[in-house]
């Protein structure tokens, strides 16, 4: 097969660039011990619905005793469950997310909420939403034919209109 010399030169350049990227990844992973943040807590994705934390009636938004918010979410082809959630603005929110099947990503545009959801692991991310409004919550890792339909609705309401949490019990909303 004939390859034009100029083309061949560019193929070498591209291969070298890929090589540099791979080296950088392996170097940080092996020598510096830097891994994706979600690779800490493990969970069995196949029996997620039978687990304590990700049981169907435990999903959703919970107000913690200290006034912060915890959101328990499941990512599964093709949606995030629950499908719609409401959150207060200007309040610390901790998401705990698990996948019931394959690799997903989670991302709320215009905010810094975004992480990978790796099957077998719990992803945790803490953030604060400064602005009230309606946001989509999207999957940004290709997960199958319905990937582009995988999104849910997040409504961030002003802190004043968020009902105060009763003292002790975590409140489900």
């Amino acid at each position: 097969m004939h390859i034009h010399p100029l083309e061949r030169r560019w193929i070498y350049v591209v291969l070298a660039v890929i090589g540099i990227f791979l080296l950088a990844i392996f170097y940080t992973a092996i020598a510096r011990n830097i891994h994706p943040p979600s690779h800490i807590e493990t969970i069995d994705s196949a029996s997620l619905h039978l687990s304590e934390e990700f049981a169907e009636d435990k999903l959703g938004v919970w107000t913690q005793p200290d006034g912060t918010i915890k959101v328990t979410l499941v990512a599964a082809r093709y949606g995030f469950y629950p499908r719609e959630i409401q959150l207060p603005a200007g309040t610390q929110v901790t998401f705990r997310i698990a996948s019931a099947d394959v690799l997903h990503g989670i991302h709320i545009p215009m905010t810094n909420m975004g992480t990978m959801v790796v099957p077998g692991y719990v992803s945790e991310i803490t953030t604060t939403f400064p602005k009230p409004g309606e946001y989509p919550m999207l999957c940004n890792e290709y997960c199958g034919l319905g990937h582009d339909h995988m999104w849910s609705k997040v409504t961030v309401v002003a802190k004043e209109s968020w009902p105060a949490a009763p003292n002790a019990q975590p409140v489900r909303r």
Partner: protein
Amino acid sequence: MKKGYVFAWIVLVAANGQISAEPSTQVAWTPETLRFVKNGDAERGKELAQACEACHAATPENAESEFPYLQGQSATYLYKQLHDYKSGSRSNEIMVGISAGLSDQDMADVSAWYSRQPLPPAKKADEVPDTIRKLVDRGDGTRIVAPCAVCHGSAGQGQTMDTPVLAAQKAAYLEQTMLAYKSEARRNDIYRRMRLIVQQLNDEEIRQLARYYAGLER
């Protein structure tokens, strides 16, 4: 006084959703369960299935009955339904009684046999509206409804584990099943996935989708 406290506690707890509901199914598709179902003995299943055939056979006499066809359905789906009837995750007067007498091995064997049978002949539907074809192929973003085809396949052939084959099923059964999900009479879909979709559809869409899938042949 004490009684009052207990009552208040119950009300509070109930309001906070702390009373845990049963999971939608006890079946988890762990590698062991998948292997167990995959290794079902179809020969033995054939004998067991003689009892099922009275209602489920793909014969002209059964065409108008309310009972679904099982031929060509995926083994994992069938296994899960039988298991769900037995564990109480899915209700049906007849099937709960029958499944009570089946062991896990019986379920795997019967499922293996049915999954190896050819699909019954499809009941060709005359034209379904374009809006229905659109729901099947493109979904509806305004209602957060994914296309049916992304999970159930472009030919209604279903997908591994618990996404059933829809092609050539009885239209009446498909319609009744979707309506049962819509009214929450049926609740054995993990994370309410099917209920959330069907609850976005109106009854006419459900009727037409059922006709569409009944008319597909694989």
